[in-house]
């Protein structure tokens, strides 16, 4: 019988009032906080952090949007106001290391905040998880996911924009026995269609939807799990699976969820 333990998520302000300063900020992101599907990923990742005793905290209600969608929608003014506000909050808690579960937040912190004086060590959750698994070998039970053939979809803002192709693949290879490559993948991967603020609007008229095409490419591998590492990719691929009427047979999981499963937590 497995026992259930309640987890309390550490909040930056609480720790601060006790004079404590955690090593990492876990940046949840708007999708991680509000999107019903991605909240599950946030929980899975929080469990992983707890399981490995990571010294972290979240900002909670003090978190706000990084401004990424505003900037990409052309509203530079709004982006910069968000950026300065976030950097101010980070300053209050003397934050140096940030873990994100969203490649868009990751990219914004890493590449765009330095222009406003915000310089941090930014870590995407796939890389962080990979480091945790490497530091604590023998924790995952690869049998749990044995039945799945997993295909990984590269998010544009993790792959092309930031050159991170390996960490997610390494994690998958640690928890599963079979991984498949989508054609095309890595730097050639097709976008899910949601980046650049597309997530928040209807697509322009065309022959078909980008997410539909990408899902078709993923399905062509014969995978029963499409793994993603980005909230927007998750929404799009899930929609694609519905459109292709495959949502019963093929599942879409985030890397964090796969790892939580393989850890049995």
């Amino acid at each position, binding site marked *: 019988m*497995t026992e*259930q*333990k*309640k*987890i309390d998520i550490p*909040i930056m302000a609480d720790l601060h009032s006790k004079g404590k300063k955690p090593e990492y900020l876990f940046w*949840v992101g*708007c999708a*991680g*906080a*509000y999107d019903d599907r991605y*909240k599950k990923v946030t*929980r899975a990742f*929080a*469990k992983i952090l*707890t*399981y490995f005793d990571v010294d972290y905290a*979240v900002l*909670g*209600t003090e*978190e706000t*949007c990084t401004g990424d*969608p*505003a900037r990409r*929608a*052309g509203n*530079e*003014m*709004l982006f*910069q*106001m968000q950026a*300065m506000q976030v950097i101010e909050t980070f300053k209050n808690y003397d934050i140096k290391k940030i873990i994100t579960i969203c490649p868009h937040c990751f*990219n914004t912190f*890493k*590449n765009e905040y330095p222009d406003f004086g915000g310089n941090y060590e930014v870590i995407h959750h796939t890389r962080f998880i990979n480091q945790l698994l490497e530091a604590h070998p023998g924790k995952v039970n690869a049998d749990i996911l044995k039945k799945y053939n997993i295909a990984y979809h590269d998010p*544009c803002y993790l792959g*092309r*924009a*930031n050159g991170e192709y390996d960490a997610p693949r390494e994690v998958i290879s640690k928890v599963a026995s079979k991984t498949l490559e989508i054609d095309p993948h890595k*730097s*050639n991967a097709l*976008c899910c*269609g*949601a*980046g*650049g*603020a597309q*997530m*928040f*609007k*209807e*697509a*322009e008229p*065309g*022959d*078909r939807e*980008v997410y539909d*095409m990408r899902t078709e490419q993923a399905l062509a591998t014969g995978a029963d799990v499409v793994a993603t590492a980005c909230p927007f990719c998750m929404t799009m691929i899930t929609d694609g699976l519905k459109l292709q009427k495959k949502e019963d047979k093929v599942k879409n999981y985030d890397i964090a969820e796969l790892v939580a499963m393989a850890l*049995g*937590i």
Partner: protein
Amino acid sequence: MMKQIIFAAILLLTLIILGYSFYRIYRFFKLTRPAFKIKDHAQRFNELMRVAFGQSKIFRWPFTGLMHALVFWGFLVITIGSVEMVIDGVAGTHRALGVLGAVYNVIIGSGDVFAVIVLLAILIFLGRRLVMNINRFNGIELRKKSKQDAILALTLIFLLMVSLLGMNMAYVALYESKVWFEGVYPVSRWFSDLFLDGIPYDQLLIVHEVNWWTHILLIFIFANVLPYSKHFHVFTSLPNVYLSRLTPVGKMNTMEDVKTEVEMMMNPEAAQEPPAEELASFGVSDAEHITWKNYLDSLSCTQCGRCTSVCPANQTGKKLSPRKIMVDTRARMKERGPQLLDHGKNADDKKMLIEDFITAEELWACTTCNACVIECPININQPELILEMRRYLVLEQAKAPGELSTMLTNIENNGAPWQYSPEDRMKWSEELFMNV
């Protein structure tokens, strides 16, 4: 002597026309905005070696990549021979670079081999253009002129290679027995035996002269056609790669004038000097708002269409084509530049780059996925310009698509793109259990 004078006159004419073409373009550059300070020369040099000389990005498409790389490397070697021809032509010398000895043999020998390789590659390219129906060559942005351009350039290169081989063959046949024979000719020697065997000395002299003049005159013509064709990239792609944007592809440029304004809003006391008097217009709506780098990108674009063929929006039938952004930008500057030069800033032809060339529908279809940037063989950055035009639409005209306006309002009011209360940010963590 006569030959030298004629040659020098033609050379001078060529350089004058070429100089004028470059001067025109230089004046257009002066209309553009600043982009970035050019530093990090070591990194730029690396990029030049890897992307330009190593043709690394071209090879993302193995077959055509190899063809193009061979033409490019051939072009480099053969150009040294062309320089020698100019020296010979002006100074009345004969194979002036022959003094280089063994090095010369390598240059001329490989040039001779490359001439045949380039010839074959060009035939394949012509075949692909004329016979095969390749999608990439048929975008709406490719007007008739682009296609004629391509065929004309390929034909010129074809003739250049034929005349080079003709010259080499005649040279081998003429001078083989003589002591002052310079260079090695692995292919032409063989062709010469095959085609020029038994032709008398006088006639060989004529064959050599005709091919020599044809070759050098074709080079002069080609050089002067380039600035007016998509093959201008022969001149601009090396500088363009050297002047690549070095920031990470995911980073979007910070608008400095907005920054000054936002800093003032957030912290009125610390506000430094008031914003510049001149009314800055935000973003790009016309040719004069682009940076020199955007313009260099547009001039360097080879119209190869690799960007468009990997663009998710384009692949799914949307109007956006990153190549079109470059083609239109160049075309608009060609039209707008002279107006601005003749009539000053207020010249108005009732047209703009935005809407009249590039529509909002195209601009809003970009997912900023950067596939085009990664693909472009000469490091052009298309989304940068797309974003600048979106900035114009949003900041100057308040014309974002309705749903995006809602999203922006949500960020402004709730700090999230969706309409949820900031108080609910921790809801995900309620009743969270884990197995132990």
